[in-house]
């Protein structure tokens, strides 16, 4: 653990933990709105954005942030205005991003090594600027959920009831998708675009298995994500394995543990 004396490691750990908190929080609302696929769709859509940014020599983080938030808002616009099914719209952006990346990779020679870090993540090489970005996005997510908690709860229950009670459902939906999209950008830095959707999907799904209220779903989701990220990073340092894989594996193990726990509780209720 002598490695922990290095400042870069602490930056990586801090950014990983921050993003684990905010993505798992956003993920709960996306799950209840049946938009969990947004994580997978947008992270793959980002592939095209990242390749385009590298090709054009633009800062990938800034460009991808812009590209992702715009993609997220367009997805919401198409779902809301055109009544298209969410999974169809998301897969359209998924395909567009990957197709764009494949073409750019095909016509350029030396993008391979750059793209590699985005595909599989590089949490331990977080720059000061990226750490600041994670901090801002995480803070924004927490403030958003804190101030609009009750309204988001009503929207998660039934949008029509929320509308009649004066909740600005459309505005909050756009804000939710926009902030979630920004979170996914930094999840890509942590675990790569292939695994980024795990942050949005697995912790809320795990929480859903054992939660007894809306608040406990949020708390458990954050807890699962936080612990898995912490354990994943330490496992990767101890065993010298890639942190992205280790983090997501820890999330899956925690999900399976909670699923087993729920099964035991249900069996006990039924037979004892």
């Amino acid at each position, binding site marked *: 653990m002598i490695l922990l004396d290095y400042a870069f490691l602490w930056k990586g750990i801090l950014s990983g933990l921050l993003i684990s908190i905010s993505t798992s929080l956003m993920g709960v609302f996306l799950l209840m709105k049946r938009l969990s696929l947004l994580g997978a769709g947008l992270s793959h859509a980002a592939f095209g954005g990242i390749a385009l940014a590298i090709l054009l020599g633009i800062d990938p983080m800034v460009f991808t942030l812009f590209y992702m938030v715009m993609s997220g808002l367009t997805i919401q616009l198409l779902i809301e205005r055109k009544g298209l099914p969410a999974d169809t719209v998301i897969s359209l952006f998924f395909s567009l991003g990957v197709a764009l990346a494949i073409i750019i990779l095909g016509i350029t020679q030396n993008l391979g090594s750059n793209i590699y870090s985005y595909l599989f993540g590089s949490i331990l090489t977080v720059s000061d600027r990226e750490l600041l970005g994670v901090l801002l996005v995480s803070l924004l997510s927490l403030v958003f959920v804190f101030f609009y908690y009750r309204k988001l709860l009503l929207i998660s229950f039934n949008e029509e*009831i929320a*509308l009649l009670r004066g909740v600005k459902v459309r505005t909050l939906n756009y804000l939710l998708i926009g902030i979630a999209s920004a979170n996914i950008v930094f999840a890509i830095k942590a675990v790569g675009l292939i695994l980024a959707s795990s942050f949005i999907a697995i912790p809320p799904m795990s929480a859903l298995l054992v939660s007894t209220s809306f608040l406990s779903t949020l708390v458990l989701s954050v807890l699962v994500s936080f612990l898995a990220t912490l354990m994943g990073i330490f496992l990767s340092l101890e065993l010298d394995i890639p942190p992205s894989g280790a983090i997501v594996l820890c999330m899956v193990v925690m999900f399976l543990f909670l699923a087993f726990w729920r099964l035991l509780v249900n069996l006990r209720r039924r037979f004892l």
Partner: protein
Amino acid sequence: MPSEVIKVSNLTFYYRQEEPLIDNLSFSVFEGEFFGILGPNGAGKTTLLRLILGFLKPIKGRIELFGQDLHTFKEWKRVGYVPQRFYVERAFTGTVGELFKAIAPKEKVGWIIAYLHLEDLLKKQFNKLSGGQQQRVLLALALTTNPDLLILDEPLTGLDIHAQEHIENILRDISKTKTVVVVSHDVSFVLRNASRILCLGMQECQVVKAQELKGMLKELYKLH
């Protein structure tokens, strides 16, 4: 003459132009009335409610609530809405208590929790309640602002006989002080309670008195 709570004039709506779901429909609902909307599946009952509540925009025609045009209507606290319970998000994990906290301050919802005997359900998750309990909670949520008009979409669907009776008794009680509009495909429930009924999905949509509809149905029964 009681005042008009809902006034629908020459309303037309369609999802596809070649198949108008609601075509040049006009009717009024008066203060204190128990008004039923009947029709088979796909007749446009829920769509009509969604138009009245402003969730959908009419292609043609005009809707007024409490004498004000729907475009400028702001007094939504006067309107309570109970959606079909199947429209609630299945993954929602919130408790009944959390829902009440989200919708109104505690002092404003105390009476309705007591009125519908929901005290024991407050700590339970909404999606783990029985159909009848869910319907009571949805009704209570709609009543939190003490509205003058209560609109319900298929309130008895999927409930067992006891739950149906319980909800029907509550609605009968509520209708003594409020205007109630109920959409249902359950003919006997609407005939038992409504004073006037709008029949959708027939060649000509029309409002009839419940007694007249009962007579028409009896005649039809004799013929067959």
